[in-house]
Structure formats: structure tokens, C-alpha cells
């Protein structure tokens, strides 16, 4: 009986290891296949035709890739800059200041994280098409896709920056700020010389998160540009390539390059985080 019990326990332990192993294979198999196929010589993205760098060469000559890349970087950097400032300020106000309707503002600032992305995207589409554009056209003005997309990206990034900064602010030793006040510092001085330097790592992680989310975003960009016909970021470019009847090989190359860019960014972020911790 005891032997049977031991056997069962050994079996469960083995099954646990096997399940974990299989899950890791499940996680990494598609990525491996993608990288492999980016070096295929075939004229079609989904056929293996021997090793070559053709896909990467084709990518360099694709006229659509450069504008998509530029748009992505423009949108992500402007949205990150605005959202980091606004999100940090919002976190400070909610955590340190006395604010009216505190609970309501708090809920509003968390909502963009929990609401399905597609709902927010549809809202922005309708807002620009039915409210902003008609209003601007009265004054003979129009709105171009770039600011439209940036506005939407800021709207969801603010919440993420706020959450990250606020968590750090809550853990922060208040006595340091109180000491500065006692020594006669103005509230602006305390903010600039004490609170913000202490918050710097959290603000940086918030900014990094906002940048990643913006680079990655599909829904808001796609809907607020009504299908991205005239304005493409990298995700929209990928989506358009995948919609073609025969997917061209540069699809594999651009996907692989995006993969390695994200991995490099993450490695850098981790390295930076490690340095800060050690210092």
C-alpha cells in the first residue's frame, strides 16, 4: 500500500515537471518557427525554401515599412512623454493632495485598464468622427491622423503610468518629505528635490510601460484612423500584410526584427533596473 502511494506521488511529481516543460515548449515553439522561416528563400512567407536573407532584403525595399516605423516611433515617444507627465501628476494629486470626489476620480483613472480595448477604440472613433471633426470643420479646420492616434494612446497610457507611480508613492517614506517641510522648503521645492528624485525609478518604469503599450497598440490606432487606410504604424502594417491573399516573405523578417527589438528593450530595462537596485 505504501509502495503504491509512493508510486502515485512519484507519478504526480513527474507529471508536474512534464506539464511545465510542455508549457515552455508551447510558449517558445511559435517564436522559434517564426525566426526560422524569416531565413527562408521562398517567394511565399509560408513555404520553406532553403536558407537565405531574401526576406530581409525585400523588407529594405518595401516602401511601406519606413513610414510605418517612423509613425510608430513618433506616436510612442510623444504619447509616452505626455502620459508620463500627466500620469505622474495625477498619482501625486491622488496620493498626496486633498482632492474632492477622490473615489470617483480614482475609478475613472483605473477604468482604461479594465475596459476592453475595442470599446475604448470605438469610443475614440465615434468621438473624432461625430464630435471633433464636425466642430473643427465649422472653423474650416481638419484633424490629421497623427495627433488623433497620439491623443488616444495618451488616454490609455496615463492610467498605467499612474498605477505604477502611485504604488511606489504609497511605499515611500513620508518622513523625508515632512523633514524637508520642517526645514522650511516650499511645496514646490519638496516636490522637485525630494519626492521626484525618489520616484524616478517608478516614473521610468511607468514611461517604459507606456512606450511598450503604445508600440504594441492595435485597437486604438486601427479604429481612430478608421481602418488605418492612410496612416499605418508597425502593427497596422503587419495586419495589412497578413490580410493579403499571399503573404509576402518580408512579413517573417519584420516580425522577427520586432521580436528581437522587444527582447533587447526588455534586457536593457532589466539591466537598468538591476543597476539602480545595486546603487
Amino acid at each position, binding site marked *: 500500500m505504501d509502495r503504491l502511494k509512493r508510486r502515485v506521488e512519484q507519478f504526480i511529481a513527474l507529471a508536474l515537471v512534464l506539464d511545465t516543460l510542455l508549457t515552455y515548449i508551447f510558449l517558445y515553439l*511559435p517564436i522559434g518557427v517564426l525566426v526560422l522561416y524569416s531565413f527562408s528563400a521562398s517567394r511565399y512567407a509560408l513555404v520553406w525554401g532553403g536558407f537565405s536573407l531574401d526576406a530581409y532584403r525585400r523588407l529594405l525595399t518595401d516602401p511601406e515599412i519606413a513610414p510605418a516605423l517612423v509613425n510608430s516611433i513618433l506616436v510612442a515617444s510623444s504619447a509616452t512623454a505626455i502620459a508620463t507627465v500627466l500620469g505622474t501628476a495625477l498619482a501625486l494629486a491622488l496620493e498626496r*493632495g486633498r482632492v474632492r470626489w477622490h473615489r470617483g476620480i480614482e475609478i475613472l483613472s483605473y477604468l482604461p485598464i479594465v*475596459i*476592453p*480595448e*475595442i*470599446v475604448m477604440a*470605438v469610443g475614440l472613433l465615434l*468621438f473624432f468622427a461625430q464630435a471633433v471633426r464636425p466642430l473643427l470643420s465649422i472653423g474650416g479646420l481638419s484633424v490629421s491622423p497623427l495627433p488623433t492616434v497620439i491623443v488616444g494612446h*495618451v488616454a490609455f497610457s496615463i492610467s498605467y503610468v499612474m498605477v505604477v507611480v502611485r504604488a511606489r508613492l504609497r511605499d515611500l517614506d513620508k518622513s523625508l518629505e515632512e523633514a524637508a517641510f520642517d526645514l522650511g522648503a516650499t511645496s514646490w521645492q519638496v516636490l522637485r528635490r525630494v519626492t521626484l528624485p525618489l520616484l524616478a525609478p517608478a516614473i521610468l518604469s511607468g514611461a517604459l510601460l507606456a512606450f511598450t503599450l503604445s508600440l504594441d497598440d492595435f485597437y486604438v490606432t486601427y479604429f481612430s484612423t478608421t481602418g488605418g487606410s492612410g496612416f499605418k504604424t508597425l502593427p497596422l502594417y503587419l495586419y495589412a500584410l497578413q490580410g493579403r491573399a499571399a503573404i509576402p516573405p518580408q512579413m517573417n523578417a519584420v516580425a522577427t526584427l520586432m521580436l528581437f527589438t522587444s527582447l533587447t528593450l526588455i534586457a536593457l530595462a532589466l539591466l537598468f533596473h538591476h543597476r539602480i537596485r545595486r546603487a
Partner: protein
Amino acid sequence: MNARILLWPGLAWLVLFFAAPLGIILLISFAHRSPQGIVSWGFNLGNYLRLVDPLYWTGPFGNSLVLAALTTIVCLILGYPVAYSIARRPAPLKNLLLFLVILPFFTNFLVRIYAWFILLRPEGWIAGVLRSVGLDLALLGSPLGVLIGLVYGYLPFMILPLYATLERLDVTLVEAAHDLGATRWQSFWRIILPLSRPGMIAGSVLVFIPVLGEFITPKLLGGGKVPMFGVLIEEKFLGRVPDWPFGAALAVTLMALVSLVLARYFHQVKESRWIG
């Protein structure tokens, strides 16, 4: 410090570009469809009455609800043992294993879906292996293919909260159970599993909600043959025959469903805190 100066820019942005758009969805969901498929202002409940049509419930809504539930269950079954065995490793290995779970998800969603597109197509490896054992399954363009893509996309949202609760679990309780003669199976079933319930619930909510609104995975891996909530919404706004007011009513319905799930979740969290 004057909190108002810090507060108002961010708050104004959220009100103007987040709350107001949500309000406009609600307004337009009561409007009429203009001949171009866009908006002709007015008030009617017609868009909501159309939702009662059983065709939607056997089609997109049903698919979304069933696939969201299946994705949650599969993620739970796949993710629990992984989270459990990561939580039991010594510190450096633990962090590495957890990092390896999250790493693929820093890459673009479309890149990951596309990778599955290569794997799942009829001439791909997986279909070949399945055929060689006598299983001729359609993967691409079928609910099964969409399910695989969804599980892949949302697995870490299940593993992370599970890991968080399992890692913080009080080991002395398990040891006490062993001392009192419980088998490992009993201590798992009676102690570890009930104690990890908060993680299971949080993970399920984090998977279920975004899957309900999914559009890219069913569009690209379902090839138009697996209609879902998100796909229908996109079609009503950017498809060939647009109907913005009806699309707005769909978005409001999706929001209502999500709020229901969230309300239920927060209720549960409150209650378990009450007990704990």
C-alpha cells in the same frame, strides 16, 4: 501643495478623451442608421431590440462566451501546475522561470498570432503530425485554431496571479496537514487548492474579460469563419456595410457584460476579505 494644478491636466484628458467617447457610444447606440451607415441623430431602442435575435446568440455572442470560458478553463489547467512548480523552486531559478513565462509576451500581439498562423495552416507541421495519426482536423479557420491562439495570448495573465498566491502560501499549514497524517493529494485538495482560490479567480477574470472583446485572434486565425463579439463590432464600423449605431449598441452590451463580471469579482474579493 496645490493638488489641483497636478490633478486637472490628467483628469481633463481622461474626461475629454476617455469618458466623453464612452458617453458618445451610449448616445449613438440610441440613434438611427443614416443611409451611408453612419449616424442620424434621434432616439430609438431599435438597436438594442435587434440584439435579441437568436442568430446573434448562436453566432458571435455564443462563440465569444463559449470561447472565453474555454480559454479560461484551458489556461487554468495548463497554468496551475506551471505556477505551482515555479513557486516551489529556489529563488534564482524561480525568477528565471517566471521571466521565461512572461518574455514572449513583450513581443507584439500580431507577431505572436502570425507565428501561430504559420504553425496551424493545413500544410504546417502540426496538421501533418495530426494527419499521420489519423486526425484530419481543420486548425486554421476553425474554433479550435482560435482557441489555441487565445490560450497562447492570455496564458501569462493566468499564471502570474496564480504564482503570486501560491508563492505567498503559508507552508506551515501544509506541513501541519502532513503531520496530522494527510497524504500529499489530500493536502493539495483540502488546503493548497482552496487557499489559492483568490489567484484562480483573479486569473480567470484577467483572461475572460479581454477574450470577450477579442478581434485580432478570431479575425486572423479564424479566417472569418469564427464570428465573435469583437469581429462583429469591427464589421459594423469598418466593414463593407457599416451600421455605426448598431455597432455602438454592441459595444455598450459588451461593456455591460464586462461590468457584470467585474462587479461579481469585486463582490467576491470583498467577501473573502471579510472572512480573512
